[in-house]
């Protein structure tokens, strides 16, 4: 009996959490747009969330592309099909690895920082003082961070893809000796602009919304103590990574199924 009790309570808590998170997001985003006030805040957050994540994204993209080139080559060369290295690297990056790995790295690099920052704002009562000054913390603190995350992750994913394909090219063509022309032309004939590149961008926009939303909600509702913020940061990374991987399967099934 108590098992059902616990299950029911967990389900209700989860539904309540989703509802709270939706209300938080709606309150933060819906309202009169104030571009003059919001733009400087947005640019600051784009810097913190986007520009500072660039290095890790570029380096991991390069290495993932190089590893794909190396592993793909050793398998494809057995079948004498090493020209297929180009499409293999490009399609796996554009369709799956680019958006997913970017989202996972973004959750670890920027999502956790967002949660900790907002959680600490709550713990040190900065959010309450904003309210005392009649400034809505949702509009002032949450909204710019949300938009910054949603804007910067697709851009980061594009860079990840480009650098990754370049990494695959470096290893495949310049090191292992796949033919230069065949690498690009076979890639071009199998990569489709809308189906592959644009669907990848759509995927990363969806992941961006999920990761940033989870991070902001977990920070905003963190228990204002040291263990509370630490738990919230952990939850951000765990929940958003799981959500990204699960959603990726659903999106792949819809887009390429």
């Amino acid at each position, binding site marked *: 009996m108590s098992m059902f009790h616990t299950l029911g309570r967990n389900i209700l808590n989860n539904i309540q959490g989703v509802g709270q998170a939706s209300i938080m997001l709606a309150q933060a985003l819906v309202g009169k747009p104030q571009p003059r006030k919001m733009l400087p805040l947005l640019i600051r957050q784009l810097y913190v969330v986007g*520009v500072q994540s660039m290095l890790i994204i570029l380096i991991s993209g390069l290495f993932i592309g190089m590893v794909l080139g190396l592993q793909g080559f050793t398998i494809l060369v057995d079948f004498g099909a090493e020209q297929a290295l180009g499409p293999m690297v490009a399609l796996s990056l554009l369709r799956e690895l680019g958006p997913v790995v970017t989202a996972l790295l973004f959750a670890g690099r920027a999502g956790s920082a967002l949660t900790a920052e907002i959680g600490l704002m709550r713990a040190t009562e900065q959010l309450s003082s904003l309210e005392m000054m009649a400034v809505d913390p949702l509009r002032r603190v949450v909204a710019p961070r949300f938009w910054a995350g949603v804007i910067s992750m697709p851009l980061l994913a594009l*860079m990840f*893809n480009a650098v990754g394909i370049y990494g695959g090219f470096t290893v495949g063509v310049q090191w292992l000796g796949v033919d230069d022309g065949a690498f690009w032309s076979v890639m071009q004939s199998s990569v489709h602009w809308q189906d592959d590149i644009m669907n990848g961008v759509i995927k990363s926009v969806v992941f961006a919304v999920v990761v940033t939303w989870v991070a902001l909600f977990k920070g905003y509702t963190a228990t204002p103590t040291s263990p509370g913020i630490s738990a919230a940061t952990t939850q951000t990374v765990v929940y958003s990574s799981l959500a990204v991987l699960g959603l990726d399967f659903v999106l792949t099934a819809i887009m390429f199924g």
Partner: protein
Amino acid sequence: MTTRTMELMVGVFAAAAIAALLFLALQVANTSDSTRGETYTLIAKFDNIGGLKVRSPVKVGGVVVGRVSAIRLEGDYYEPVVEMQISTRYNRFPETSTASILTSGIIGEQYIGLEPGFIDDFIEILGDGGEIPNTNSAMVLENLIGQFLFSQGEK
């Protein structure tokens, strides 16, 4: 960090992303496709289209001149009809042309091979929506084996 440097870095960030998008668009995806730009439609009826798919290439002598845009069944006998978008640069296919479904390599993808026919005074040039009357269907391996076994049995 002053606001100015921050704006500069965000600008660099956005520019890098646009550069990445351009790289993907120009170098990775196929934008110099002959099927971009102006196209016109040709249709052809086959008995069997084999593994032909939408977006399969249409080639003349190995050169891609267009792509398959739709495949459907038509008429009382459910005949497969293939619709192709051909670049308007190649708009002089006479009605004596032949369309065959061919395979690139042994296990490669299937494509439509167009062969322009002869032209004289009484032959019309196919316009938009024109039908190619002469077609050769896809080779289906099972049928070939079946015919082979059948011809062996007759001896």
